[in-house]
């Protein structure tokens, strides 16, 4: 906390809740930062001379005569190249044991990009994972979450993608991470890249939940600096956005707002969109891609958090254990990358879209055949063949530990088509059949 000369100090709180406190003060700006007894807080409501502050680290132990200082500034962060390789907390203070470094202060949560100045995303990001590259191709400037149950290895997959993706910076926004997961990210990034690309903003379960609200803004403002000012390709990882939304609901509840669906604030859609829409392709070449995690409870995607997220993001990825091979795959049915149309068959081989669709359709037929089998019906010859196709397809192409180039994925899929199916059953445009249906 920095004190300046002639700064007014207030010391009479009229009301304290679990996350907010109210006092009489004048000349305060909306969304201005303040410090209460050294704890960071932000103005969330002003009615006459009554100012309500949201106290990020919680109000436990605050007394009504706590010292309050207003900074006169909106939230800001010292952003610069010095951040590379470092890990910070919600307030931008280092947590990796190394000293604080000063930089130019920049406002966080600033204005949005004029839509007409955006460039249509057009660069492929390859990950070597067929569930993504082949079936749900990622494009830089895209925003896409993993919808995962808490028991699924989403953080491992996230770090694997980050390490394989060809980008200039990786910014990790960790919300409600367990300390173990924080160490996992830290060590896997240390091994993969050295310290040349990673910047982390971490809120662990040891910190107050309300502090999480600062993490995405910190991470995305930093990303904006590198993408816009330095024209870099930035990948932002946000995990776990469900815990972020939970923190939003805590604050709105404390402020007596009427909750909408699933006890979430009515503004949840706008609150999440403001963050996810920071994903952008800038005209000068820099871009921000967001890969997020939204944990589900019991796979329920109709809950307000995944539901609103799905309407905002450009697709979603589901993890699934493929029982026939006992490995994790990216679910080909429920996953979707909305931007894939911009690159598949254009930046990739022209048969890509048709091969992708045909394989998924056959995979669906295999799922039906499996249901038949489970219900005790006899399988037709076709059913048996698609089942074989599906097993090989999962094992050799989809499994998350397989690392292939896109052309290899396509060739392998053609190979499997030919091994188990006829041309009619595959149903691909004649011109591609002529070209690829060969020995």
């Amino acid at each position, binding site marked *: 906390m920095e004190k300046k000369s002639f700064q007014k100090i207030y010391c009479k709180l009229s009301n304290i809740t679990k996350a907010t406190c109210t006092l009489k003060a*004048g000349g*305060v*700006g*909306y*969304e201005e930062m303040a410090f209460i007894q050294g704890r960071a807080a932000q103005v969330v409501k*002003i009615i006459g001379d009554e100012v309500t502050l949201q106290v990020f680290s919680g109000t436990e132990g605050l007394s009504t005569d706590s010292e309050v200082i207003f900074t006169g500034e*909106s939230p800001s962060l010292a952003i610069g190249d010095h951040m590379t390789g470092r890990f910070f907390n919600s307030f931008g203070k280092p947590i990796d044991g190394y000293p604080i470094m000063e930089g130019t202060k920049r406002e966080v949560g600033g*204005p*949005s*990009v*004029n*839509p*007409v*100045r*955006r*460039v*249509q995303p057009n660069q492929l990001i390859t990950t070597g994972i067929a569930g993504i590259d082949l079936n749900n191709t990622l494009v830089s400037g*895209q925003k896409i979450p993993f919808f995962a149950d808490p028991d699924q290895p989403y953080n491992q997959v996230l770090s694997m993608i980050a390490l394989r993706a060809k980008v200039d910076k990786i910014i990790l926004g960790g919300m409600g991470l367990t300390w173990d997961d924080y160490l996992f990210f830290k060590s896997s990034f240390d091994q993969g890249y050295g310290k040349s690309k990673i910047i982390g903003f971490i809120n662990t379960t040891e910190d107050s939940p309300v502090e999480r609200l600062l993490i995405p803004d910190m991470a995305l403002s930093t990303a904006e600096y590198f993408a*816009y000012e330095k024209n870099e390709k930035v990948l932002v990882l946000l995990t776990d956005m469900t815990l972020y939304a939970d923190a939003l609901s805590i604050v709105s509840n404390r402020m007596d707002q*009427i*909750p*909408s*669906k699933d006890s979430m604030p*009515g*503004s949840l*859609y*706008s609150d999440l*969109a*403001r963050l996810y*829409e*920071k*994903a*952008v392709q800038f*005209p000068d070449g820099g871009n921000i891609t967001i890969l997020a995690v939204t944990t589900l409870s019991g796979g329920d*995607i*109709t*809950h*307000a958090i995944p*539901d*609103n997220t*799905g309407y905002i993001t*450009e*697709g*979603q990825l589901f993890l699934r254990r493929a029982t026939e091979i006992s490995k994790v795959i990216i679910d080909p049915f429920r996953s979707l990358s909305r*931007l894939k*149309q911009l690159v598949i068959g254009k930046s990739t081989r022209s048969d890509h*879209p048709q091969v992708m669709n045909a394989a*998924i359709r056959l995979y*669906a037929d295999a799922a039906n055949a499996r249901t*038949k089998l489970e*219900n005790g*019906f*006899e399988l*037709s010859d*076709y059913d048996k063949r698609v089942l074989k196709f599906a097993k090989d397809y999962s094992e050799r192409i989809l499994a998350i530990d397989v690392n292939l180039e896109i052309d290899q994925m396509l060739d392998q899929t053609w190979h499997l088509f030919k091994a188990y199916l006829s041309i*009619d*059953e595959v*149903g691909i*445009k*004649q011109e591609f059949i002529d070209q690829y249906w060969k020995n």
Partner: protein
Amino acid sequence: MSNNLYTCTGEITAIIANMVVVKANGPIRQNEICYYLHNNKNIMGEVIRTDRNYAYTQVFESTRGFKIGMTTNFTGNMLEAYLGPGLLTKNFDGLQNDLNKMEGVFLERGARTYPLDVEKRWTFKPIAQPGEQVLAGDWLGEVDENGIPHKIMVPFKLEGTLKVVEVAQANDYCINDTIATLSNEAGEIIKVTMVQTWPVRLPIKSYLEKLRPSKLFETGIRVIDTLNPILEGGTGFIPGPFGSGKTVLQHALAKQAAAEVVIIVACGERANEVVEIFTEFPKLDDPRTGKKLMERTSIVANTSNMPVAAREASVYTAMTIAEYYRAMGLRTLLLADSTSRWAQALREMSNRLEELPGPDAYPMDLSAIISNYYSRAGQILLRNGSKGSLTFIGTVSPAGGNLLEPVTAATKKVARCFFALSQERADNKRYPAIDPIDSYSKYLEYQEYLEYSKIHIGENWIEDVDFVRNTLIQGREVYEQINILGDDGVTVDYHVMFWKSELIDFVFLQQDAFDEIDANTSIPRQKYMLEKINVLLKTSFMFDNFDEVRNFFKRIIYILKQMNYSEFQSDKFVGFENELQQVINEKVKA
């Protein structure tokens, strides 16, 4: 944007997110626009409730840094749209700022730009004669706007009968030049330019009467035009969970629909989707005129990260622009994606005003607001005998895919066409995922349409479509039977029935929006294919077992799909058609 003198001023007394309370020193008007003076910039807001001399206002931009006591100026005017030649090809935000004129990559607070080009010259031709009696909305002259006859009308705000004193001669003029002088009943002289303003929350009603829709509004999408047609001046809505293809469908409509003017409002949706339109429309050709698609299109983009209150205004701004073009006797299409985001903006504000909430915390009058909005669409008869139409198609994003949620339920009461997107179809990659059975078009009950279809599509069109629909319903029932009893548990006829419905699905309902030819099917082609399919549906085939049924139908579906991918009646198309005939001949019962 307004240069009017302020009607009164006030000071801010409370700030809660984007709701600001202002104590005013004079009369306040509901929905009037006010400007807050913040760091020497005028930030725009709108009065949404008044309590004695306190105005509750919604701020159209971020309130970061706002302080108690800040000066606020009231304009006395409601939010108005500027209407004149040059609206097409433009990209506006929800408050009609021209986004292309904004400087910098980021949207800075308080930045405003004029929606039209002041210096561009338009070639004007007079229509009205001096001495003529005219009313608001009557045509005085016209200019050529990208090949569209853009009428310059008597300003909608003028009341009573007016007399034309003078109309400018044919020549090139700027929008602010006087192109006519009128005199009103009191003998006052009124100068008319090519620009006028209109409060966006009020409908433009300068027509003789509203007519019942009768003509098919062609979209080129088979499952809509054939099975669930929308008519010129009609209303429709597309509800669907995320990932079911709403946006792709909206874009297809914007590209292909048989409209002369298309207004797209991206209301609280993804910015990259608007960027797609910005990028593609200037390059794509309008199949009907050969001009670029952008030349008939105007976009109102208030994406999800742009301020919520401006999002709420954006749907009205777009509707007003569409009504303006309809008043010129044009066929206009308004697409809104998504009306749910608009409803959420209403909810956020209602919540801040601490109003008692209705279902799911939406305002109690949500249903009335939605039906009022949809009622602004329609086909109109102008006083000069011309007809104009405004067809409206909105998307709805039901929370959790639940079609009983308040926005979907309220919309269902007013929209005449319901294009239900099904998650199951989307999961199976059967696009467009419009469910052929659950969807409906009330226009199929309109006598006017039945007569129209007999004359303009085909004598037996309605019967043919009904036959296809019934086959689909039967196919669905049979499919359930097969699932319960197993492939062997039913007769081969059941399999034939099921595969006949699959044939309709794969060949007619599914359409590849990304294939240049398949994406857009003309009505004659739809008719040709539907008749071809009907012949197949009515043919009896000989099969020994169900494997044979499946193989046969897969074969003919494959050939028919190749026909869909080929230019209509081209050699390639005819080639596949002949191949199909051979395959069929082998299987027909003697």
